[in-house]
């Protein structure tokens, strides 16, 4: 052991850790680090994901946590963890409990009976300013403000999301409304602001969001990862036309890069395959606040390739496919706008 001071130190730390955590399941911790910490942070402070502090966990059931992990939040960034085993999900939930020293509050699964029509009035008066008319939440983005300016410190979760409604019991929703989540800006409505009956009604109304959901889009039979267009022009003219069209559409164009540039030397690089890269910083800056990971698909690129038979093709990523990487409904407008821009540019080039 003397030869491996680092290893010895780590073992000592691990033992100390095991002792401190008593009955902790180490695999739960590992699994949490591996699957959850990127968004929720190691100590549950929140990031792209919401905070998971003791105050919150004390008011949600194990069943809610299980289901949230399994269902994720479709269209709201958090993926559905379908490939974890039941034992692994159990371990993560156990870890969250031990970490926060909380217990399942033991809510019943009984349906809260309320008048959804009256609940709508309550909702419009008290909830709409943070949760928006459709329950998806006012303001853009998810989780906690980190390196970006946003309208709320903690962005309200989408309470019309199928992942939320499929996980939360009526009693849990009732408790959230009654006690609020004061540490993140949601006030308590149980301190005389709303009667128990009003809260029942608003729970019934939140439940009714369930009926407005549409199923996520499956991959269509003709859907391809890339749109390939044949250019009526030669290689050089195609490139020049694309740039003219982009400049006309107010994009900033970056220097061209050959597809192989940087992976081989300048003498053997294929110069008949070039990526035309462009960006609109104004749009980008706004979108990064909503989706900090967006930079991974930037800048936009149209790849122009001369094939061995002399035809010139233009390749543009299919943004419907790109959107599947993000699981973020707030980007739908961006994809649509970009798809339209691409189509206009291709039209202009192929005219």
């Amino acid at each position: 052991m003397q030869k491996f001071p680092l290893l010895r130190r780590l073992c000592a730390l691990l033992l100390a850790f095991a002792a401190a955590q008593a009955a902790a399941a180490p695999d739960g911790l590992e699994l949490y680090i591996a699957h959850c910490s990127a968004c929720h942070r190691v100590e549950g402070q929140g990031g792209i994901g919401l905070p998971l502090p003791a105050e919150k966990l004390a008011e949600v059931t194990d069943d809610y946590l299980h289901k949230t992990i399994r269902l994720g939040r479709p269209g709201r960034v958090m993926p559905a963890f379908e490939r974890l085993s039941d034992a692994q999900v159990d371990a993560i939930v156990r870890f969250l409990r031990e970490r926060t020293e909380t217990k399942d509050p033991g809510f019943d699964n009984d349906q809260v009976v309320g008048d959804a029509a009256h609940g709508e009035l309550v909702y419009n008066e008290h909830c709409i300013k943070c949760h928006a008319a459709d329950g998806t939440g006012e303001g853009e983005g998810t989780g906690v403000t980190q390196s970006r300016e946003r309208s709320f410190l903690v962005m309200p979760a989408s309470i019309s999301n199928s992942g939320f409604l499929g996980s939360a019991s009526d009693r849990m929703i009732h408790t959230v409304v009654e006690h609020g989540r004061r540490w993140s800006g949601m006030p308590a409505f149980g301190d005389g602001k709303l009667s128990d009956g009003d809260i029942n009604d608003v729970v019934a109304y939140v439940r009714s969001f369930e009926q407005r959901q549409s199923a996520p889009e499956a991959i269509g039979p003709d859907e391809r990862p890339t749109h390939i267009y044949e250019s009526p022009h030669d290689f050089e003219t195609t490139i020049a036309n694309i740039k003219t069209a982009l400049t006309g559409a107010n994009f900033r164009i970056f220097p061209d890069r050959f597809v192989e540039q940087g992976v081989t030397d300048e003498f053997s690089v294929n110069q008949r395959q070039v990526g035309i890269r462009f960006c609109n910083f104004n749009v980008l800056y706004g979108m990064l606040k909503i989706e900090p990971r967006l930079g991974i698909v930037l800048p936009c690129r149209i790849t122009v390739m001369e094939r061995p038979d002399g035809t010139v093709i233009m390749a543009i990523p299919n943004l419907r496919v790109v959107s599947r990487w993000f699981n973020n409904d707030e980007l739908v407008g961006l994809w649509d706008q970009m798809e339209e821009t691409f189509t206009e540019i291709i039209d202009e080039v192929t005219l």
Partner: protein
Amino acid sequence: MRPLSHRLIAVLLLCATGFARADGMLMMRIPMRAEIVFAYAKSSIEEHGYSVAHIQLCDGGMTDFGYKTDFYRVLFFGKLAEVRRISEKYPELVSYVPLKLAVIAEKDDTLLTVLNPEVLAPYFADAEVQIQLSRWHSDLESILDDVRRSIGKRIAHAD
């Protein structure tokens, strides 16, 4: 909530395995400044046999336009043989090469993010594409794992 010590975080980084596989995005959070994580990421990519083709300075671009932003860079990387074969045989994949890894500062932490290439698998019937996508996937996981372990060691040594 009990705060975790720096050393404990080092141990966690060293011991944890695997990450968000079910997801379209492979992500990892590293409790270390982005400049440092970036350097580790770059060398791990090279150790995995890839050439770093290009570094996109998203932060620089935004700053030039007067926007305030933290460290935000994207590493582009590929292997010549793969890039060449793909552009010849599978032009539909060309938009997705070279591969990319984003290094994004979140306060004192750093987020590493890559697109999971396996999201493209359902669009192709060829065994060759399937093998390529899953090889990329496992390389990307291995690169992220490497960075995490190296940073874990660095934190442990710094104590």
